[in-house]
């Protein structure tokens, strides 16, 4: 059965009985927008009938929507047409509009679907960028697009591309992970088996639809005929108790989120708010997309116990867009390792005797996923207890990066020294112990803040525009794990002659404010140095790793100003 056939058979079986309910903010309360599966299917056929009559199916279609059911009509419509969908974040300023423009260019797309409410704003925003190729924004909701009954099942094969997931690559250089219909079906089956998803499940979520966890989470629900309840990220972040209330009201069984969201729930939901809530139906609280913290797991188990939350529901997982979504999943008995810090620095696990590092198990490989630990230099497979690069092999592994053969070969064509492969090279570091995966580090340079991947080069480039004294000077953004949260430090060269009336303190405040606002992260620590204080390679590239080590060991040179005192000050 193809992906579209699978979806349609569920929509037919549960056409009237099952629903996708979206909870929209209205003032300070949430109101329901309910679509029965029959309506969802009809909306998708309408979009698909219209799309196939006007659009060349070889070109990807960008989807720019507010959180809600309109996105899902459009997305399913793309699947029903066999065209490539690109779910993207809705741009809200010049910078995010630039990102949309770069995605359009990278994907060679000239059509974006949206709603009547947003169309004019988006058209004006993109016109201001002066693209060399015109973009048509079409609203799917201002009139009937086509007769849903004129839709015919598209011809799709296993290799037909379902969507591009633009979570990889920096803002300046976005890369689209190519997820085929076969990848989607395979990982949906993997997740279904691992989490025990069925038509009886009730999935409750708030993760954005342009995030792999939000997108695939809903799709897995739909291919199983499960009931779905959604709300916007903003609605959840404003009042985290809303998620718990929805789980209690709709008898939710599965909800997924990055670690920070569980931390937020534990911190912000009060015992009074929990009164009267019943969380005993919650079977799976999947925790993934960023490092899983032991402290968070224990806090949430304690905080939610009075509402009947089952401690074993908290399930750490590991995955990424490059494997569609899920690779490993915790089986319900949470394991931790107290690893010896010195041994770990030498890529080896031994039980702690002195300084300890607490490692959280991300569970065993999910059904249909082959997980190996490989020495990234020698390419030999490593035995249990040794730290190496995490390699994955599965039909869930995506087809590569869209129109990027070189980057695809580098990441998706890993062969071990004995010739076995191809494997996806995740770039993450980890070890296997008793058959379970413990992630110990991540791809060089990548920063993860609140579940979002950030690239240091984006921040370094952004800082250039803050003040003439830093424009054209080199700098590095590096991150540190302080008290269970990721903290950023910017080490930036300054031209003192261009400071004018600005003091170093004022410049540091300006840089902090601009970065915090531009990237929606806590203000970084800032160190200003003279030009010679930045380490460069012989070819003139900045050496982030070497700068990071120098900062950690207090060995930075040519320092003219240091305002890193706020780093970690929040703890």
């Amino acid at each position, binding site marked *: 059965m193809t992906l579209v056939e699978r979806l349609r058979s569920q929509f037919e079986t549960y056409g009237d009985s099952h629903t996708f309910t979206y909870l929209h903010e209205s003032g300070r309360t949430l109101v329901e927008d309910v679509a029965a599966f029959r309506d969802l299917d009809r909306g998708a056929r309408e979009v698909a009938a219209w799309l196939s009559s006007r659009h060349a199916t070889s070109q990807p279609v960008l989807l720019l929507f507010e959180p809600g059911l309109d996105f899902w009509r459009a997305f399913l419509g793309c699947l029903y047409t066999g065209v490539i969908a690109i779910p993207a974040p809705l741009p809200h300023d010049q910078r995010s509009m630039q990102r949309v423009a770069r995605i359009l260019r990278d994907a060679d797309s000239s059509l974006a679907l949206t709603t009547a409410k947003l169309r004019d704003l988006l058209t004006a925003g993109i016109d201001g960028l002066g693209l060399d190729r015109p973009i048509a924004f079409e609203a799917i909701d201002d009139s009937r697009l086509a007769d849903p009954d004129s839709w015919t099942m598209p011809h799709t094969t296993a290799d037909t591309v379902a969507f591009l997931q633009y979570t990889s690559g920096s803002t300046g250089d976005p890369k689209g992970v190519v997820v085929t219909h076969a990848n989607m079906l395979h990982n949906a089956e993997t997740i279904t088996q691992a989490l025990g998803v069925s038509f009886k499940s009730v999935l409750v979520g708030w993760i954005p639809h342009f995030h792999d966890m939000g997108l695939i989470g809903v799709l897995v629900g739909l291919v199983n005929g499960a009931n779905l309840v959604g709300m916007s990220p903003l609605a959840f972040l*404003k009042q985290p108790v809303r998620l718990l209330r929805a789980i209690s009201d709709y008898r939710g069984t599965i909800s997924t989120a990055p670690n920070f969201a569980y931390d937020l729930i534990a911190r912000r939901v009060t015992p009074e708010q929990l009164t009267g809530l019943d969380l005993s139906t919650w079977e799976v609280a999947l925790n993934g997309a960023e490092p899983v913290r032991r402290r968070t797991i224990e806090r949430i188990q304690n905080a939610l116990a009075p509402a009947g939350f089952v401690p074993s529901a908290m399930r750490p997982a590991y995955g990424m867009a490059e494997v569609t979504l899920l690779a490993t999943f915790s089986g319900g008995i949470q394991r931790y390792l107290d690893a010896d810090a010195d041994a770990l620095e030498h890529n080896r696990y031994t039980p702690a005797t002195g300084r300890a590092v607490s490692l959280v198990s991300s569970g065993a490989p999910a059904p249909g996923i082959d997980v190996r630990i490989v020495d990234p230099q020698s390419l030999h497979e490593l035995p249990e207890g040794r730290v190496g690069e995490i390699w994955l092999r599965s039909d869930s592994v995506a087809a590569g990066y869209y129109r990027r053969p070189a980057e695809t070969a580098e990441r998706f064509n890993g062969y071990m020294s004995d010739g076995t492969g191809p494997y996806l090279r995740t770039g993450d570091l980890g070890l296997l112990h008793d058959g379970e995966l413990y992630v110990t580090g991540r791809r060089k340079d990548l920063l993860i803040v609140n579940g979002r991947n950030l690239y240091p080069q984006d921040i370094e480039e952004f800082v250039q525009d803050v003040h003439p004294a830093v424009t054209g000077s080199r700098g590095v953004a590096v991150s540190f794990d302080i008290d269970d949260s990721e903290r950023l430090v910017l080490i930036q060269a300054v031209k003192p002659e261009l400071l004018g009336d600005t003091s170093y303190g004022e410049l540091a405040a300006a840089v902090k404010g601009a970065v915090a606002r531009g990237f929606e992260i*806590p*203000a970084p620590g800032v160190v200003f140095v003279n030009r010679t204080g930045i380490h460069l390679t012989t070819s003139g590239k900045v050496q982030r790793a070497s700068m990071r080590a120098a900062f950690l060991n207090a060995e930075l040179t040519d320092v003219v100003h240091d305002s890193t005192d706020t780093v970690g000050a*929040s703890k």
Partner: protein
Amino acid sequence: MNANRRSILRWLTAQLASYLEVSATAIEPTVPLAEMGVDSVHAVSLVGDVEAHFDIDVDPTMIFDYPTLAHIAEYIDDAVAEQQEAVA
């Protein structure tokens, strides 16, 4: 600053201290929030709690338009007064 604003500010300080898990005395009402390690998740948290506590609608960009707690206290005080006038 009038008594209203002082009490709003005390409440705001206590909220922020709880998000950041520091004591209220560590919060400076006149230092921009971004410089105190407040990220977008904290900012939206504050918006949500202000809405619920004062029963007013707050735009999520509040934290950018009113960068310090002292500014936010003034904003809330005005918004609450405006709302009471509208009701009266």
